[in-house]
Every structure is written in structure tokens, then in C-alpha cells.
């Protein structure tokens, strides 16, 4: 892409200057697009979270700002946060208090640099993309720690400590579960891994063998924990700690933490989709492996559709995270650590061992044909559940009261 941009600039400037400016300009453009995408995603997710929370709690959610569905509620929230008074507590350590939100947001944003949205549509096509993303997202812990300590309040300190312990612990099974599809794929480069899952639905690694299938669910659990989402959200446990590490934050600084949380939710969902669910490949067309939609529709339309498919898949996973948050009760801190160290860590080690042995010892026939069976079984299960939900309506909870959804 640097060559393309330098050729474009050479129409206006000399070739030497164009060669010089092109990488800088490309970096600026990519950075701006990613920041814009992250911010817009955060805007959308905040609205989605409130709507999902409302519906699960049998109410409507925001309906007043911006029409019937409250589309502009996030804008109203943003304006409110911007005009709030910028308070720093007297006991706070000024430098660390100010630093915390920025470190958290930058760490989450840096992960997007290596996240591909299409074949080659990535800011930095790294050889070790998935390792880099895990490494960089581990720096978010610092934002939390510095915010918790720098606020000078005991609620923040406790919240920050718990949060840091939780995130650090859950990184280990998360990384091991990430290794499972990397072993199957033979590369840590996310573009390569997603390209290997091109073609029909059965090529997705989640159907490849039972260990990868289990690794998807374990990875998703660890990712939910490392994003400090419920049921692992004791850092923000309102019933215990006021608001945890961001108690003393208000206004724009607090919104940085929020954006960081939604950005890392999208990033870990992106990793899950790329490693397990085929990335930007829809599972249907083109159905020959090794072919991409760009071969049929050209680079622009193909990449746009691929990016759209990838973003919708990630949004589905984020929606599942939100769904789980408003459904399950919160775990205690000892339950959180017990889940990680006594259950998820041994399970992920067993999965790693299993997938290595599977790759080495299974006869080729099983390796090639199991995925068709698995894909068929999963698609059949999903269709059966949907059919059952649609064909027989759930009975009304109260007789005689018209439910909201029956319009």
C-alpha cells in the first residue's frame, strides 16, 4: 500500500518526496481510520448495551433521544461527559491519575494495528500478529493499576488490585487457548490463519477437531474475564466497591476507560473470529478453498464485503458478551481466581496437549472429513433451536397483559 500511495503522490510531487511522505501519510491515514472506527464502535456499543440491558430486564432502554429507538442517546451521553467538571481528588497522585486512562486506551488501541479486516486490509501485517496483540493488550493492566492507586481512595485501590490480579491471571489460559488454532494453522499471522479458513463453513477451525471447538469456548470465557466484563466485573462492582478503579473519574477521563473497555472487547472478539470462525470469510460463497471474494468481485467490492462480514461477526460476539453480562450474576473474587487457576488453566493445557497429539497422531481421513460432520452437526443444532423458538411461541408470563413485543 505504500507503493500505491507513493505513486499517487508522485502525480503531484517529485518521486523522492513522494517516497518520503508516503509512509508517514499512510501511517496517519491508517491511524485515523482505526481511531475513527474504534470511537464509532464505542458509540454504537454503548447504545447497544443499554438497549440489550433494557430488553433483557423487560423494559425498553433509551427511547427518547433521537427518535423511537434512542439512536442519539450516546451523543447525549458524550455531551454530558464533556461538560462535566474535571475533578481530581485532593489525595490523588496527579501524574498517575491523569496517566491511567490514556495508558488503558492506548494499549487497547495498539491491538487494532495488527487486526486484519480483510485479506491484506491491515495496518501492520505482522508475522506474529496474534502474539503482538496479546502482548500489547497486557499493557492495559497498567492503566488500571495506576488509576486505582493514583485515585487516593480505598475503593479504587481495592478495585485496581482485584482487577490487575484477574487480568494477569486470565492472560495465561487465554494465551494457551490462542495457541491451539495457531498449532493447527502453523502460523501466528492472522491474515494467513483467516485465509486458511476460506471456502465453505466446514473449513472454520472451530469445526476442525474437538480440541479447537472447546478452545473457542474457553478462549471466549477468558477473553470476557480479561475485558473485565460480567460475570467477572468485580473491578466495577457497584454493590461492593462504588465503582472500583474508576470511582474518582468523571467526565472525559471516565469515557476513556469506557472506550478502552469496548475497544478491547472488539479486539478480543476479533481475535476469536479470526482464529476460530473464519475471519472475513462468509461460509458460503466462494466455496472453493483458497479463493476469496476479491477474486470474484474485484478488490474494492470484495474487501468491503469482507470487512462488513468480519465486523458483523465481531459485533455478534460482543452482543453475546453483553447478553451474558445482563443475565448472569457476578462472581466473587475467590471464585474468579478459582475458575481461572483450578479449572480454565488445566483445561487449556489439556486442550493444547490434545490438539498437538491430534495433529500428529490422527489418520489423515479423520483430519479431512471430521470437519464436515462437525459443521453439519452444529448448523443442524442451530437450525433446530431457531425452529423451535419460532414455531412455538413462549407462553405469556401474565395473563391479560399485552406484552411489549407483540405489536
Amino acid at each position, binding site marked *: 500500500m*505504500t507503493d500505491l500511495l507513493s505513486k499517487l503522490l508522485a502525480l503531484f510531487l517529485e518521486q*523522492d518526496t513522494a*517516497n*518520503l511522505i508516503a*509512509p*508517514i501519510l499512510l501511517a496517519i491515514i491508517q491511524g485515523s481510520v482505526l481511531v475513527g472506527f474504534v470511537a464509532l464502535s464505542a458509540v454504537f456499543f454503548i447504545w447497544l448495551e443499554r438497549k440489550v440491558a433494557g430488553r433483557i430486564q423487560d423494559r425498553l432502554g433509551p427511547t427518547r433521544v433521537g427518535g423511537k429507538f434512542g439512536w442519539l442517546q450516546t451523543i447525549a451521553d458524550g455531551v454530558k461527559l464533556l461538560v462535566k467538571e474535571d475533578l481530581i481528588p485532593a489525595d490523588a*497522585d496527579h*501524574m*498517575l491519575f491523569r*496517566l491511567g486512562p490514556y*495508558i488503558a486506551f492506548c494499549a487497547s488501541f495498539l491491538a487494532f494495528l495488527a487486526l486484519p479486516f480483510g485479506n491484506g486490509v491491515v495496518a*501492520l*501485517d*505482522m*508475522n*506474529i500478529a496474534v*502474539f*503482538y496483540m*496479546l*502482548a*500489547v493488550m*497486557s*499493557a492495559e*493492566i*497498567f492503566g488500571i*493499576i*495506576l488509576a486505582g*492507586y*493514583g485515585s487516593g481512595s480505598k475503593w479504587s*485501590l481495592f478495585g485496581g*488490585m482485584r482487577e*490487575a490480579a484477574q487480568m*494477569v491471571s486470565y*492472560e495465561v489460559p487465554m494465551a494457551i487457548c490462542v495457541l491451539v488454532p495457531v498449532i493447527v494453522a502453523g502460523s*501466528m*499471522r492472522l491474515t494467513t490463519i483467516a485465509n486458511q479458513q476460506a471456502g465453505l463453513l466446514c473449513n472454520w477451525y472451530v469445526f476442525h477437531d474437538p480440541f479447537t471447538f472447546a478452545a473457542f469456548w474457553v478462549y471466549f470465557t477468558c477473553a470476557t474475564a480479561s475485558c473485565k466484563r460480567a460475570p467477572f466485573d468485580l473491578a466495577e462492582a457497584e454493590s461492593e466497591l462504588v465503582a472500583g478503579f474508576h470511582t474518582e473519574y468523571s467526565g472525559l477521563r471516565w469515557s476513556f476507560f469506557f472506550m478502552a473497555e469496548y475497544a478491547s472487547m472488539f479486539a478480543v472478539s476479533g481475535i476469536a473470529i479470526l482464529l476460530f470462525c473464519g475471519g472475513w470469510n462468509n461460509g458460503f460463497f466462494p466455496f472453493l478453498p483458497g479463493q476469496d471474494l476479491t477474486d470474484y468481485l474485484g478488490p474494492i467490492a470484495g474487501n468491503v464485503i469482507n470487512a462488513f462480514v468480519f465486523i458483523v461477526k465481531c459485533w455478534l460476539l460482543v452482543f453475546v458478551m453483553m447478553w451474558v453480562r445482563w443475565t448472569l450474576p457476578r462472581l466473587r473474587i475467590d471464585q474468579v481466581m478459582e475458575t481461572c487457576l483450578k479449572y480454565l488453566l488445566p483445561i487449556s493445557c489439556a486442550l493444547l496437549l490434545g490438539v498437538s497429539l491430534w495433529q500428529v497422531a490422527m489418520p489423515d481421513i479423520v483430519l479431512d472429513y471430521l470437519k464436515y460432520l462437525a459443521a453439519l452437526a452444529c448448523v443442524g443444532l442451530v437450525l433446530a433451536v431457531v425452529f423451535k423458538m419460532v414455531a412455538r411461541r413462549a407462553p405469556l408470563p401474565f395473563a391479560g397483559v399485552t406484552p411489549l413485543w407483540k405489536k
Partner: protein
Amino acid sequence: MTLPDLQALLFYAVAVLTGLCAIGVVVTQNIVRSAAWLLFTLGGVAGIFFFLGADFVGATQLIVYVGGTLVLVVFGVMLTAQGPFISLRTGAAEWAMSLVVGLLLFGVLAVTVAHKETWASGRAPAEKQKPMVIAEDPDSSPNSVLIGHGFLGQPIGPNKTAYLLPFEIVSVHLLVVLIGAAYLARAKRRRGAAANAADVR
């Protein structure tokens, strides 16, 4: 100004920032702030690794040092920074001694770097031209694959050395450290009410 000049400029900018943050670690009087400066220093070092094309080492630096060691340091510092240890004041004698040691170390490093023909002579000249930004074709710099092969005993690099034995030694070392840490952090058995009172911290 050509492209290599720009890359050199970026490299020097990151290096100077890292150096300034390292100075901040030493100079600041609040111990938690010096841990924060250390975070930026280690991040800068990881950035220098990325500049030199060693992405695997840079990412490992981030995940091991920043995500592991520094978190431990900050935990320890935060929870034990009570009273007299929260504000560090270095006396003049300590400044003088540390300046002398630091200048001596800097002198040794500078002399070594200036005579790099003597220790870099084993390398073919073409391999010195490592690009300073991530290569356009990522599969042309498969450094993580090379490292993996080296760990498994295949000779890699210009001197054709394999690293299986060091890898095994370090693995056993890590295992010993893990067992030691688990033993030190075990829940201690209570031996009665008197021991209970002594156990409360």
C-alpha cells in the same frame, strides 16, 4: 532528506525518549511514579526492538517485562510503600557514587560500540541492512520460525549455532522457579491459637 534519514530520526527520537524516561526512574522521588517511568522505559525498549525488525523479541519484551515483571514490581511497591519509603531522597554521596558507576558503564559501552568492526566481523555485510520498519512482505523476515527452529536444535544464524541445550536449561530453571514460588506462597499450616496471633499481619 531521504527515507533512511527519516527512519534514523524516528529511531533517535524513540531512543531519546526512552533515555529521558530512564532518567525519570532515577530522579523522581515518589516510588510509584518511578515504576510508571519504568513502564515507559520498557515500552521504549520494546519500540526499539520493533524498529530493528525484531518483532518477536519486541512483543516478548512487552509481554514478559511490561505485562509480568513490571506488574509484580508495581504491586510490591504499591503495597509496601508506607511511611518513610514513599518519598525517596537520595543524598549527595549516593548521587556522586552512582554518577561515577554510571559514567564508567557508559564509557565501557561507548568504547565497545565504537569498535564494532571487531565484534561484528562475523556477519556478512548484506545482513547488516536490516530495514528499520516492518518489512512489506512479512514472510520474508520469519524470525519467530527461525527462533523456533533454533530452539529445537537446527543450526540457525550466520554462525550456524543451535540453541537446544540453553533452551532446556532455561526451561528447567523456570520449572525450579515456579515450584519455589508456589512453595513460598503456600498457605501455612496453623499450629494453634498462639501461632494464629503471630500469623496475623
